[in-house]
């Protein structure tokens, strides 16, 4: 139990000695009703997704998860390309975003002057408030041209012999989607990492400085050691955010149901497939397969998110991070 306080006394009083007035009863009922909405939604999500994906579950069974074919014409549906795309874009996003955001958080929390740190605090708050559809728009009209005219030719010239950098240079594709995702989760991870860093007692830092350590020595020897479990948790939270993102990715990934080693090739993620096909899906089995995709996304994302949350709780970081 996290709230070890004396308030049980209060509850005991309420329960046994104090007469509950009508207003208190109303308050209690309203609160409990609101709580029930939360449970209703969780149960509803699981049961309705299961119910409406039942036709696809019945038709394809477990092979849904391992089949590459996604063809509304022949009514063949398999989730492998979408799951691969989701994993690949999230991996690219994590590789780019996590080091940058940890470094940036270290700078903002430890190195910088308080005024600068406040300035960056505002910048990051604004960035994390900007909706994904705007990142997607920006990605499509600003990032994609840059990718096709600059980044992709450069990568191909530098290490074109690798299978990862082959293919047409049209700017769309898994790499671009990963970069957009990275840009989107950076503000979130910076904020979360800062909250972990701020939990280190200032006495410890002061002690280190008074021994003559430089700022980096303090960070390296104390902060990173102190905070690495917490930072791991925040990184996982960031990953779960990237997994669940749909709209921004749908703009730039190209939306093809293929698996290719090349990072320049088009692909799709679970979210982007849902966004692109769901509204226009006329066929019942198609819709059902899409809802099953949603179920898979729900399980993956909530799984990662819950692991992160339980981990943060285990190492005793209060949940404010999320």
């Amino acid at each position: 139990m996290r709230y070890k306080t004396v308030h049980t006394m209060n509850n005991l009083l309420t329960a046994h000695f104090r007469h509950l007035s009508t207003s208190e009863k109303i308050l209690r009922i309203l609160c409990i009703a609101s709580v029930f909405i939360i449970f209703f939604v969780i149960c509803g999500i699981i049961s309705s997704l299961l119910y409406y994906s039942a036709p696809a579950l019945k038709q394809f069974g477990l092979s849904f998860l391992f089949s590459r074919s996604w063809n509304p014409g022949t009514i063949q549906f398999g989730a492998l390309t979408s799951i691969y795309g989701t994993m690949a874009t999230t991996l690219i996003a994590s590789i780019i975003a996590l080091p940058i955001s940890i470094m940036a958080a270290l700078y903002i929390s430890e190195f910088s002057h308080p005024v600068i740190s406040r300035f960056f605090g505002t910048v990051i708050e604004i960035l994390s408030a900007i909706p994904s559809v705007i990142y997607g728009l920006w990605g499509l009209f600003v990032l994609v041209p840059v990718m096709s005219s600059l980044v992709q030719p450069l990568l191909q010239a530098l290490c074109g012999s690798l299978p990862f950098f082959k293919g047409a240079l049209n700017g769309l594709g898994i790499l671009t989607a990963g970069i957009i995702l990275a840009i989107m989760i950076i503000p979130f991870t910076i904020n979360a990492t800062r909250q972990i860093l701020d939990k280190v007692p200032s006495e410890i830092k002061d002690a280190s400085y008074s021994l003559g350590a430089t700022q980096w020595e303090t960070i390296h020897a104390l902060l990173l050691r102190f905070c690495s479990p917490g930072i791991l948790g925040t990184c996982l939270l960031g990953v779960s955010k990237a997994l669940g993102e749909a709209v921004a990715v749908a703009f730039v990934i190209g939306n093809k149901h293929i698996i290719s080693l090349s990072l320049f090739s088009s692909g799709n993620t679970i979210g982007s497939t849902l966004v692109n096909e769901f509204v226009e899906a006329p066929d019942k089995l198609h819709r059902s397969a899409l809802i099953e995709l949603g179920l898979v996304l729900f399980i993956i994302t909530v799984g990662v998110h819950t692991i992160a949350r339980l981990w943060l709780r285990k190492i005793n970081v209060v949940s404010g991070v999320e």
Partner: protein
Amino acid sequence: MKAKSLYQRRLVNFIMLSITAGCALFSFLVLVMLIIALCKNGYPALTKTFFTALPAPPGVDEGGVSNALQGSIKMILFSALIGVPTGILAGLYIGELARNTRKADFVLNACGILSGTPTIVTGLFVYTLIVIPSGHFSGFAGITALTLIIIPVTARITAEILVQSSTAMREAAFALGASQWNVTFFVLLRAVRSGLASAILLTIARISGETAPLLFTALNNNYEADSLSQPTASITVTIFQYALSPFAERNDIAWGAALLLTLFILAVTLIARYTGKPQYLSRPLR
């Protein structure tokens, strides 16, 4: 281990300082590039017809987004009106009525699961809940989806703020014989109102940018929706669909709408920041 000279240690420190500062600057650069792109492409689109006209057929120049503006405002307003009080009540249950019980922990975990749920899945759920039975997309479904996104977030924030608030204060109030009702509304919520208000503003900013759940529930509408039981246009879905359209004038309208949305979110975020005093503003200086 050989001791390093002071010069070396300072050099390492400086190098790390530069690298980390570069990473922080990167985030700032992204913001600058975003805002430049938005202003450059979006500002020319913000004409009078943009605000007053209905969407034009593809290829025609005279289109606007008045219906999407109205739809967005309606849906955000109604979902906030329903979702925020419900969320606060659930938060009161976790942070006050069932404080430090197993039940509160359980509810908090449930909220955690919901806030980890991708909003697109919430949209799917509302689609199966409302759109399939009623047979058509509707503004009500959009409101429901946004409400379901607001509730867990508000509940968690309220609970968090209440748990962190002073215990002495509520004990004093109880000791004076105040009822739970009085303590809750006239002591606790009063004491935390500025923090709560800023958190709620941030939540509203967040839902005003939601696209995927609205796409599955309210969809879009080229005309003004007479009532919320019809498909309802919204700014975010308009941006999404117009940006992917092959017509240049539609892309321009998407940029204009994006600029408008960003300005709105920027304003709300800054108001929230300067009313609510987030914790790092009161952080002690090193």
